[in-house]
């Protein structure tokens, strides 16, 4: 989930901008290297995978199990392992904030996945981010192992700069595998299916849809 995640765009405008930006020099970008409150948070994260700003190529081919083991030994806080299916990348994210039941996990280069009780409720810095979703009803059914229906609105940052809602109707129920709950959602001619493995009332492993541009995320709790 490093810069490689963003490397698929090379458009005319981008190229032009890069030309202008790269060839410029000056003092303007100098501010912001000082230690700061946010950097404190970031440094916590940075410990997870060696140095901050390590090139993506180095991280990508690493074995997820090895990555997880390293992360667990350096970082004492809550950790998750997130795979982005569309891009074939996997990274360890460390918790950088907790607000009630909501947790924000970040990669060293500050891309974030936001979970509420294990349910994906937002992403940041991935280019096709989900801004928010209210997943309370689904979450309750999933954790209780019960079947039922829920209305869910997933909200996205649209290209025109607005937050746009995508409403879905979801059916929740046990899947074919024991211990796995399935949430099947449909709306706007789009459908997706999330899978949650629940143990002890908590979602430990899941595969959840991040949105039209992002695809599925696999999320595994390394340390709760």
């Amino acid at each position, binding site marked *: 989930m490093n810069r490689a995640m*963003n490397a698929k765009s090379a458009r005319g405008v981008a190229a032009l*901008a890069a030309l202008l930006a790269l060839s410029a020099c000056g003092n303007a970008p100098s501010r912001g290297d000082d230690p700061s409150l*946010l950097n404190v948070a970031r440094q916590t994260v940075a410990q997870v995978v060696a140095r901050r700003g390590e090139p993506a190529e180095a991280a990508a081919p690493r074995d997820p199990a090895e990555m997880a083991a390293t992360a667990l030994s350096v970082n004492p806080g809550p950790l998750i392992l997130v795979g982005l299916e569309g891009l074939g990348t996997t990274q360890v994210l460390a918790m950088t904030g907790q607000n009630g039941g909501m947790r924000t996990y970040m990669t060293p280069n500050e891309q974030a996945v936001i979970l509420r009780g294990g349910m994906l409720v937002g992403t940041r810095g991935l280019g096709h981010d989900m*801004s928010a979703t209210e997943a309370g009803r689904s979450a309750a059914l999933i954790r209780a192992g019960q079947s039922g229906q829920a209305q869910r609105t997933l909200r996205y940052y649209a290209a025109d700069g607005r937050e746009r809602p995508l409403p879905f109707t979801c059916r929740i129920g046990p899947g074919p595998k024991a211990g796995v709950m399935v949430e099947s959602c449909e709306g706007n001619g789009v459908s997706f299916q999330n899978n949650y493995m629940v143990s002890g009332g908590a979602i430990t492993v899941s595969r959840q849809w991040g949105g039209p541009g992002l695809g599925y995320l696999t999320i595994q709790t390394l340390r709760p």
Partner: protein
Amino acid sequence: MTRRPTLLRHLLTTALPASIVLCAGSGLAVAEPMIGRSFNNYGLPGAVDTPSAEMLPDAELTATAAKSELTERVGLVFQLAPRVTTALRYGKFDSTEERRGYVRDRSFDLRFQILDEAAGTWRPAVAVGIQDAIGTGFYSAEYIVATKTITPTLRASAGLGWGRLAQGGGIGSPFGDRPGPDTGTGGELNADTWFKGEVAPFASVAWAAGDKLTLVAEYSGDEYACETGDADTCARSVWLSDSDPLKNRINFGATYQLGQNYQVGAYVLGAKHVGVQFTLLTSPRRAAYPSGLEPAPAPVRPRPDRASDPDGWSGVWASDPTAQPAIQKALGDALADEGQRLESMVLTADRAEIRIRNERYIQQAEAVGRAARLMTRALPPSVETLVITSSEAGMPTSSVTLRRSDVERLENTEAGQIANAAALTDAAPRPAGLVPTPGEFPDLDWAIKPYLSTGLFDPDEPFRYEVGGEVTARYEIVPGLVLQGSLRQRAFGNAEQEAPGSYAVDEYLALSDDEITEQNNGVYRVRSDSRMYTGNDKLQVPRLTLNWYGRPTQTVYSRVTVGLLERMYGGASAELLWKPVNSQLALGAEINRVRKRDYRDAFELLDYEATTGLVTAYYEFGNGFRGSIGAGQYLAGDVGATVEVSREFANGWEVGAFVTKTDLSADEFGEGSFDKGVTISVPLSWGTGLPSLRTVGGTLSSLNRDGGQQVNVRGRLYETVRDSHSVRMYDGWGKFWR
């Protein structure tokens, strides 16, 4: 404050269309008017020469180039509203009136869909259109057309055309004779010719032969009379050319969609001529990275409970004189990391106000949201009221007041919720206890970079450019008092120094101002000699000004700018703007006293002096539309009015048009009759996904004439102030938690 509920309601009901999120082309049913799949050679939905009643998706912007043995055109098409398509094009055609034997002429089209197709019934979509509404009339035509979906892959259109569309196959003149085209200076509306003269039927079918390929066939009344030397039908003899005539009125074409952003096409006209076309499609509503790639914001840090931090909750920390400096330093550093500057801060036991200057995010709400998050991380628990004041050019322009408990409660929820809990007000002018952040001012920013300046659509030289190196610097002495400028050295390019009209450069330099005026229909050349300034190999100073911004009252802003205001004029400029934060109306007045700058020497001035002044009313209509109307005196001493209308998007895209009409007669003004143009502004962040306030774009204006010209002062107040005012702030509010 009274506007807030309306604006909020608007913000909160930005319901769908889901297609905006789900990317066009994903095969979803969309509640938009009938959308065209392929473009005709005018760049609009249709067959080859004939139009259809189809529209483009709302806000779509396309650029088309078409070339055949008979024509050559480039143009822009913008879907101004769901049912209104507009087009601006430059066509090249022969003219015996010009030395060079041809003219590149602008034309403007409008298409309005009056009726949408009703699925499952007989009712087709119906549109009326006017082609070449204000140009010379070379492409002038009007039409009414109906389009019906026959099968999912087959659409048929039929209509009636006037003007160019009725050069052949006419069936009579229901509304009287068609007057000849404007043979004078052009540029006026050709309304007297609309729907006049012979009318002829036309028809077309379009078959989607696959996902990407569309085949079209049409029967068209456009016989290319002028291009093929048909003197009886050609509207003006000076346009006559001598290509081979078409063999019949049937045209065939094919278009192929390449990805989401390109379309290529080829066609055969009357079994005689072939042509090709290329279309580039873009839209403010499609981007490679809709949410942007900027790093995640800092998470909100909820306060510890009272028992675990009794001192923090009691507020006793506020009496410690070291508290505020430490907090201000930490918060300032954290904000700097996110592209914002903490200019100053008020901190008491239960309330904190920060004044921030956003230097990174186009949507001010994103800057405010990030600042709010950082405040929850930096401030002791007893601080419950958070005030985030936006500062633009040193002026506090608006304050967002939030309860810290709302920020904690609503983090990462739908943005409308925190909008409801926030208050947007005019900033307090000088709050008690305001402490400037040490080390922020004076502040110097500078950069060295290459520059490329271009000129397009010049009849003689379609693409002019100049490349060189540029140093820009901005020194802000205290907030609001700025010395700024740039230096340029040209390296190479094909833009040379040229005198206007038929003069050589030396001849023009030898003329006195009176002679220049006399030989230009009595109007001094205030802009039309702009090319005297190009091709300068000396060190150039495009701008060098001292700017002073102020805020005399809570709702009035002021600006004084002195120095080399722009490439052609130097002097002094003063402006006042009344703009309450929650008002959709703003009133401004500007007065400038300027001298014309020397063509070559950066610090020399010519003799021509002028006083210009404009009183302007600005209004934000909502839904992204805004307009302004201004009246006053322009550079040539002419008196008149300027009207501007534009459509803007929360992400920073803007497409607009303006016209200026002054008391100069069409003869005094010359070609084009009055000043008009189109402006497009595209944020770099939309293209790259990386946050930046920079935009690229420009103005496609009429030929540079001398009537209705203003001084190009940088940093006018309205643009400076409004990004943090209600309409723009709430339009962009969706990114509060981004």
